[in-house]
């Protein structure tokens, strides 16, 4: 059972939505249903003081269902506490609500997740590629995207 103060509040308020709570090396991760991500984030900001969105990133669990995970790292500047929030996203419906309306910091971070993983953020004000050109094909941080890039032979090491 997690001792993180936000977990009890989340479980009470979003009983159906909390899918999993995990502890590792003293850090807490809460997995919630993606349908409720906006409500959960708004609650964490308004009621629990998580005013600083440190990071948003994606993870590709190729071969598992659901395939993707969107990970939010939250920080409370008042309480000096961190919380990791995760939401699973299926490959067939690769979309999740944008949290830009809650923290402006999510703007570029969500664009990067879209660019690298191809996860669509509904309601994002300006969802475009950010690290790659607009006409780039594919999403490089997906596990099935070749590390050498498309249409290139894998590096075989030095011949000499």
């Amino acid at each position: 059972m997690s001792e993180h103060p936000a977990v009890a509040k989340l479980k009470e308020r979003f009983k159906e939505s909390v899918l999993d709570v995990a502890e590792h090396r003293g850090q807490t991760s809460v997995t919630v249903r993606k349908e409720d991500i906006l409500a959960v984030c708004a609650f964490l900001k308004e009621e629990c003081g998580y005013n600083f969105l440190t990071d948003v990133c994606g993870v590709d669990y190729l071969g598992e269902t659901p395939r993707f995970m969107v990970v939010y790292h939250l920080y409370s500047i008042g309480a000096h506490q961190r919380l990791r929030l995760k939401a699973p996203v299926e490959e067939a419906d690769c979309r999740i609500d944008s949290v830009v309306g809650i923290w402006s910091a999510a703007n570029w971070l969500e664009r990067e997740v879209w660019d690298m993983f191809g996860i669509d953020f509904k309601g994002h004000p300006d969802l475009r590629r950010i690290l790659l050109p607009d006409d780039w094909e594919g999403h490089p941080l997906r596990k099935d995207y070749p590390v050498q890039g498309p249409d290139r032979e894998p590096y075989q090491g030095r011949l000499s």
Partner: protein
Amino acid sequence: MANLETMTINMGPQHPSTHGVLQLVLELDGEVVVKATPHIGFLHRGVEKLSEYRTYHQVLPLTDRLDYLAPMHNNLGYVLAVEKLLGISDQIPERANVVRVMLAELTRIKSHLVWLATHALDIGAMTVFLYCFRERERIMDFYEKISGARMTSNYFRVGGLSADLPDGIEKEIRDFINEMPDNINTYEGLLSGNKIWQKRVMGVGVIKPEDAIDVGLSGPSLRGSGVDWDLRRDQPYCGYETYDFRVVTHTDCDTWARYKVRLDEMRESCKIIHQCLDRLKPGPILADCPKIVLPPKKDVVNTIEGLIHHFKIITEGFKPEPGEVYVGVENPKGETGFYLISDGSPRPFRMRIRPASFVNLQALPQMVEGALIADVIAIIGTLDVVLGEIDR
């Protein structure tokens, strides 16, 4: 009827203040910026992807190249994250922690010197540039003596340090640190009282504390808006909680405030380095974890256990148990964080870098819209971005 015609121009990537990569599309109404759209350029280094194909040890040199003005900080964030993932954070020897803090603070001074030099140069002050680079060169010399490289240090290791400090370096660093406050006064003497400097930075790029938090600013850019938050004090690592230093904030929220914060931070770093030098005692520099840290060379050639451990760690790496951690460190630019997921294999399943410069640059349109075109240069400079960190 008012003339509502605006003009769109491209600023950068050729302009020196845009670092050769950043392009800003500015919509202007006369000299006033109506809209700014940054295009952050394409360096395409793919550090996060490459990390999935390397062992934990092999990832370390990639982290140097993120923020190349503060390589030790990136090394530090990464090794702290791996140590946390392994559960060995409490086994790092005292000497290694003191050396880490000392080099992190030297690096902070080094990074702030480049910032001050180039920021002042962007605005038109040449002399400060030369003075700052003179001092930075001495820190680069320390880097070279300690790690063997002037820029890409690759010095910290999972479990401690790659080598002990060379003989005599402590005295050289102490001499440098004794002189540094006077040098900082010199830079300030050249700029702070200068009417041109004041007009170029005061009231420019104002961002209120609530907006700064909302948009994700961190580090000196956030503390210039009066937010009293520093990871060294609030989420301490490497024993920072035992050092006496002040978290510098200024409440003007403008370019001037961020300039003053960084100057005062350099002074605070000098204080911390003095304390480190006083604490340095002989002792081990690597944790006693034979499955993770490489054994000393004499053990490799003299003992079978040493040889086996060396061989296993080099060929296979180590395997943290499955799990995930996030560790953020107070980089000179702000919070640089490493999020690592282990699936039990010797390679990171996923490594995500939370780049300070990337998130800080996001605030640029908000800060320049409504300002004059000449202020754009000052505002880019005040954010102290490194494009290598932005496009990892």
